[in-house]
C-alpha cells in the first residue's frame, strides 16, 4: 500500500466515511465534517499510524491534502 492509500484509509476512519477518495488538491471544504476539531483527531491519527511528529510550523501551513502527503513522505524518507 502506498503512503497516499494509507492516508486515505486514515481519513475514512477519522471522518467515519468509507466513500472518501482523496486527491492532492482537496481541502477542508471538500471533506464532510472536516473542521478545526476533527482536524486535531486527523493529525493525531496520522502521527500515531505513521509514527511521525509534525512541527508546529508545518501544522499551520498545510493548505491541502497534497501538502500533508508531501510532508509525511519527507518524514518517512528521512527515517530510512
Amino acid at each position, binding site marked *: 500500500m502506498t503512503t497516499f492509500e494509507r492516508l486515505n484509509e486514515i481519513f475514512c476512519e477519522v471522518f467515519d466515511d468509507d466513500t472518501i477518495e482523496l486527491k492532492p488538491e482537496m481541502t477542508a471544504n471538500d471533506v464532510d465534517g472536516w*473542521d*478545526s*476539531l476533527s482536524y*486535531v*483527531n486527523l*493529525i*493525531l491519527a496520522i502521527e500515531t499510524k505513521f509514527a511521525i511528529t509534525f512541527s*508546529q*510550523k508545518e*501544522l*499551520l*501551513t498545510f493548505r491541502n491534502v497534497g501538502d500533508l502527503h508531501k510532508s509525511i513522505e519527507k518524514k518517512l524518507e528521512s527515517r530510512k
Partner: protein
Amino acid sequence: MFFNSIEYFLFLPAIYLIFYFTPDRFRWIVLLSGSIFFYASLMQPYLLLVLFGVMLATYVFGKLIAARSEEKEKKRLFWIGAGINLAILVGMKYLPFITENLDLLLKAIFGKSIIPISPVIVSIGVSFYVFQAISYLSDVYLEIQESESHFGYFALYISFFPKILQGPIERANSLLPQLKKPYEFNYDNMRSGLLLFTWGLFKKVVIADRLAELVNRVYGNANAYTGLPLIVATYAYAIQIYMDFSGYTDMALGTARLFNINLTDNFNRPYLATSVAEFWRRWHISFSSWLQDYLFKPLQMRMRNWKSWGSVIALLITFFISGLWHGAAWTFVIWGFLHGLYMAVAVLYKPLQKKLYKKLKLNGTKILKLWKIFMTFNLVSFAWIFFRAESLRDASRVITNLFTGLGTQLGSLSVLKQSLSLGLGKFDLAVAAFSLAFMIVLEFTNRENNEHLLRLQKKPIYIRWVVYYFLVMWIALFSATGSQEFVYFRF
C-alpha cells in the same frame, strides 16, 4: 471624520478625483497621504506616532524575518516584532485597566494606594491595525507571504483609510497585490460601491441609530426596568449592533470598491447560524478568522495530545482574549468567556447530541434547523447583555430581572404597549419596523451576502432607480436624530 459625517462626504469625492487624475506610479502616494489625513482628522497627534511606529517596526521585522534562513532566528525575530506590536496595544489600551485592578489588589493587601492609575486615552483603530500587523509578521514567518520591500505600499496596507478605524483586518496576500494593481475606471465597481455604501448608511442611520435610542434608554438606567422592557432592549441591541457594524463594513467595502479594491466581507447573515461556532464563522469574519489562524489553531495543535480537552482549553483562552480585545473591562472579558464556554460545552456535548438526534430521528429536519437557529440567536443575545451593560453590576441586574413581572406585563394591554415601545413614538416604531422588514427581506432571502445588491443591478432601469431614490430619500427623511458614533470604534 467618520463615514456618516458631512466631512467624509466631501473628503471621499475629493480624494477620488485626485486619485483619478494621478498617474499609476504615484497613486499609492495619494491613497497613503489621504489615509494619514483621514486618521489625523481624529485630532489625536500621538495616534499618528503610534501608527508610524507600528508601520516601521512591522516593516523592518518582516524584512529581517524573511532575510534569515535559520528557523530559530526567524522565530526569535517574529516574537520580537509581534511583541513590539503587542506592547504598543497594551500601552494604548490596557494600562488603565491593568493599573486599576492592580491598585485594587494592592489596596486589599497593603491597605493603601501604591501605584498611580493610568489615564484613559483614545486608541481608535489601534487594535485593528496592530492585529493586522501581527498577521503579516506571522505569515512572513510561516513563509506563506513574502515580505514587502516597498515601504510606501506596506504603509498603505496598514493604514488604507476605508479600513483603518474599524477593519476589516486584512491579510497581506489579499490586500497588498490589489493596492499595486494599475487603476482603470470601472463603471460596475463605481455603481456597486456607491450602492453598497448607501446601503450601509441606511442600516446605520435609519435602523441602528433608531434602535440605539431605545436600547440606551433602558441600558442607561438598568435599575428602573424589569421584565419585558429588558427583554425588548436586549433583542433590540442584538439587532442594533449587527446593523451598526455590518453597516459600517458595507460602507468600508463600498468605499474601497471605488478604487477597485475588494476588502474582506465581515458578515454573512450571522443570526441564521445554527451553532455558536457557526455564528463566529459568520460574524466579524476577518477578526474571527484571525483568532482561528493565529491563536486558536496554534494553541490547539500544541495541546493536541489532550484531545477534546486540548480544544476546550484552546477555545476558552481564545475567547477570553477575544473579549479583552473588545475592551479593557470585565464585562467584555465575561462576554468573550461566555462564548468560549458555549463552544467548549458544545465540543464535549457533541457525541451525546449526535446520539440524541439519531434516536429522535431529527437529523436533517427543518424543525431541528429552526430550533438550532432560535437557540443560537438566544445564546448570542444573552451574551450581548454583558457586552452592552455599563458595568458588571448592571449586567447582573438585567439578568436577574429579565423575567421579573413578565406575567403581569403580558396580561395588561396598556402596560404591554408601553413596554414594547419604551417611549419611542409610534412614528419611530413604524419607521424602525418597516426599515427592518425591508432590510430582512432583502438581505436574508439571499444565499450569498450582498447578493441582493447584485441582483438589483440586473433589474430594469425603472426598478433600479425607484429603489435608489427610495433609499436616498429614506435616509434623508428618516435618519435618527442625534447621530451616534459606531459601536466598534471603541475597540
